[in-house]
């Protein structure tokens, strides 16, 4: 998903009551998983999926996302996606 500098609005995720603690690790991972599930069903262009993308891109360290993406390509992602 490419970023268009004209329309991009900088937003950080709002408080999520599922993850009330300081540690947001699982918030990041859960949104990554939800995004993968969402696009698997609706496709990458489905607009409501983007809320997950925005959340995990904002919360997750880049190298985690890279690692997961690599694992996903290799079919070794340690998350249940169905």
């Amino acid at each position: 998903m490419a970023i268009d500098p004209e329309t991009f609005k900088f937003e950080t995720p709002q408080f999520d009551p599922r993850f009330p603690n300081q540690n947001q690790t699982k918030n990041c991972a859960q949104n990554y998983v939800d995004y993968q599930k969402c696009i698997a069903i609706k496709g990458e262009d489905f607009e409501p999926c983007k809320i997950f993308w925005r959340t995990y891109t904002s919360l997750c360290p880049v190298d985690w996302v890279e690692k997961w993406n690599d694992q996903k390509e290799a079919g070794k992602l340690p998350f249940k996606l169905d």
Partner: protein
Amino acid sequence: MKLKNMTNKVRGNMQLHPFHLVGPSPWPMFTSFSLMNLALSMALTSHGYMGHNYFMFLAMFVVFYSMTLWFKDMMAESSYLGDHTMAVKRGMNQGFMLFVVSEMLMFVSLFWAYLHSALNPNVEMGMMWPPMGMEAMSPAELPLLNTMMLLASGVTMTYAHHALMNKDRKNTLYGFMYSTMLMVVFVFCQGLEYSFSSFTIADSVYGSAFFSATGLHGMHMMMLAMMLAMCTWRVYNYDFTNTSHVGAETTMLYLHVLDMMWLFMYMVMYWWGS
């Protein structure tokens, strides 16, 4: 204080206090060394520093040998020398209670280790329990049978105890034998279950926590089977009386505590955790 019923000559000849001051014995030292030997040879064997496990089995044999020698001294002191007065028996019962409490706390720490990961599985586990890719054992098969056998062993144990207190030798022997056999079958079934398991102790925190806890329990079950076999032998050997049987009491207490531990373990680790 009434002295008129016993001659003072007798009283002066007896030990003046009820406590058992044990004589010099080589067995504590011997047992310590054999246990150290067992720990070292187990560690060296399991970390691959030795190409065989002969030393481990030798050390196990020596541990059992020293235990046998120590216990036969204790049986001689209690049954044949009459060193175990009420105060001594009370002390041994209290000591065993303290041991049991420390055992329970050890199991608490293992439950803590398990639940630490199980209640909030982290990202590396795929945020699920059992972790991604692990396949838990079915709680409805052999583990359920094992649970029923342990509950049954509680029944046969009480049966043996009541027979013992009512001076019924035949049923006491049967009760202890049934309990021993149930323990042996439990250990056998647990070994069978382990041998068909899809994961090992080295497979993720799930395998580690699961096998540490159930394996430690299984080792205690082996100990319990030995204790029960020894009780059976001591009943056969006329060592226990209907009112004085500290060895039987401690074995029974231990059996019930380990039964209870298994019930928690079954409910948490096999049933809820799968």
